[in-house]
């Protein structure tokens, strides 16, 4: 977390994504499948993730944040674009190289109940990755390493033989973290890692993730819809709407110097836990729902719900560039001045 004005030196880029596109075909018919349309889940997404940095990917459900991560991991085949891991083009890697990459990029999932096998002990869950990536940890060191990992994530190493159901939600999420770290990754994709946890436990896991990053120099791609948590944990934030990044910048640029109307509306919808800051009356309420990604609006995809929309918004798609705010924003009519009232 950098204080305002203190630019951290540009660290090595560990992940670069350029013009990533993922379209899912919509088909009709059972025997003779024909394509009748496409769901444009991710459309021209570019970003860089530096070493030791946390990049937040935020947006409403269905905006393409998880699909972006899945496509980078080649769990989905990209329709277009490129992704480089430390200079290697991920989408052209051979099976063997991909095997190695999957160790370098680990994932922590949202649901700590569904993401752990109930029939395996904690020790086996953490060690499972080593059965696939045998080179990471010699067999005779594994048990000791599991102890270390459990300690690292704040669990009692004596619980190595327990099963997931014997743990609370927060503890299970710690097991998920230990499993990811067992393979010594350099990037961890955190897909809504705290949203299933109780409020009093969320902060524990957030602090753990921060400590581990400092200790191990990890890079996080942090996917979440909770904008308060994202502000806290992320160095840079990319706001997505209908498969596109609409605004990106550091915490202060995106939250205090918001330029895109969608970001403004999204932030204004997040309640502040203080009755004195009550703003039900003057908050920006977006009308209706997010349009279908199978048939996104022409031009700017947000224009159908935007109070600033004009003719040009339907005709020309705004590019994600700096328009005088100091950070890139994809809007023809961005907020330029800093508004202290927000």
């Amino acid at each position, binding site marked *: 977390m950098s204080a305002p004005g203190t630019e951290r030196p540009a660290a090595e880029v560990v992940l670069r994504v350029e013009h990533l596109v993922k379209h899912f075909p919509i088909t009709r018919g059972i025997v003779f499948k024909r394509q009748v349309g496409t769901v444009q889940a991710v459309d021209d997404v570019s970003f860089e993730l530096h070493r030791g940095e946390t990049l937040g990917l935020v947006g409403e459900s269905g905006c393409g944040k998880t699909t972006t991560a899945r496509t980078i991991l080649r769990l989905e085949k990209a329709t277009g674009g490129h992704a480089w891991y430390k200079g290697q083009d991920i989408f052209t890697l051979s099976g063997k190289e991909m095997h190695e990459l999957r160790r370098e990029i680990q994932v922590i999932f949202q649901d700590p109940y569904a993401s752990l096998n109930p029939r395996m002990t904690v020790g086996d869950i953490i060690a499972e990755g080593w059965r696939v990536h045998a080179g990471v940890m010699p067999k005779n060191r594994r048990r000791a390493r599991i102890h270390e990992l459990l300690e690292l994530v704040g669990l009692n190493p004596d619980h190595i033989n327990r099963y997931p159901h014997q743990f609370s939600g927060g503890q299970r999420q710690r097991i998920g973290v230990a499993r990811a770290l067992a393979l010594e990754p350099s990037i961890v994709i955190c897909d809504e890692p705290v949203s299933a946890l109780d409020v009093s436990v969320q902060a524990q896991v*957030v602090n753990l993730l921060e400590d581990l990053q400092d200790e191990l120099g990890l890079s996080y791609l942090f996917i979440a819809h909770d904008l308060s948590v994202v502000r806290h944990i992320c160095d840079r934030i990319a706001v997505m709407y209908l498969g596109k990044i609409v605004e990106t910048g550091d915490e202060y640029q995106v939250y205090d110097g918001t330029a895109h109307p969608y970001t403004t509306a999204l932030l204004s919808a997040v309640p502040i836990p*203080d009755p004195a800051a009550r703003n039900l009356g003057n908050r920006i309420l977006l009308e209706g729902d997010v349009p279908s990604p199978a048939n996104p609006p022409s031009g700017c995809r947000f224009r159908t719900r935007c109070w600033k929309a004009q003719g040009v918004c339907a005709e020309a798609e705004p590019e994600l560039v700096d328009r005088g705010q100091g950070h890139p924003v994809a809007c023809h009519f961005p907020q330029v001045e800093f508004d202290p009232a927000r």
Partner: protein
Amino acid sequence: MATTLTRDTVGGRPVDPAAPLLAVEDLRVEFRIDAGIVQAVNGLSYTLGRGETVAILGESGSGKSVSAQAVMGIVDSPPGFVTGGSVRFRGVELLDLAEPERRRVRGNRIAMIFQDALTALNLVFSVGWQIGEMFRIHRGVPRKQAQEKAIELMERVKIPSARERAGCYPHEFSGGMRQRVMIAMALSLDPEILIADEPTTALDVTVQAQIMSLLAELQQQTGMGLILITHDLGVVAEVADHLVVMYAGREVEKGPSLPVYHRPAHPYTMGLMDSLPRRDVHTERLRPIKGSPPDLLAIPSGCPFRPRCRFAADICAAKEPPLAAVSAGRVSACHFWEEVSRERSGD
């Protein structure tokens, strides 16, 4: 509304005009399961006036939802039993009513909406039909008129092009629209109290904001009392007049929401506030509450929050803290509430 004034009996008993809309006192609910007896709600009291919003705040297992089910009379029984206390609706004891009378209170006088609107709706009937069902069954309104009333209600909860969409099925609606359908059904019989159990938890923030502002608007129109069950301190801060914080089935702090937020008098409330990041300010490091909520079958002796509390001393294990009066209308179940509330005196 004028109509509520003319309805002056509940289950055949006359209402007390001087009584509050709802008075819950020392409510106790337990679940008798194979593993033992779980005290899900252990002495909960609050009152709700017309046009007021009371928020019951707690984490999973705190008993907040069960307490609402007890008020509504829909606790799964067995294994759940309301074992004590009273729930008085305008002075009439609901716990004494026979089931047929209780059923008439549900929907007519007290309505409820749930977190998961999709499971609460029937997938094989159109939404217009389901809303209209309220009028057909409870009021004996003929089919055609019921359909018209359903459309009116859909307009009232701001479902766009209500007339066309009345024939749609729940799967054709988005999450926010389904919750609006639930609200329409709940409001159909002009209830005096609406209980909203985590109404926006499954929804995106932008939709959550729409639903919360809709509820506030409807409350203003009808003057109904709103009981909001939630775990979200942000949502509570925006709408609640009064706040009841529950932990392990007990009320730990209670009072008008502004003073409770600004100067918590219970370490659990304070811990919740401290562990939350905010979207409007930069936070350096979160201060979480240690440990996790207790197993309800093995609640610690004395104060249930004691193992997670940084103020805990010997007395906390020996004696369950009584509700201490902090100020007018405010109580805290902590032996050290004075010390706790002093921490924020600088605010």
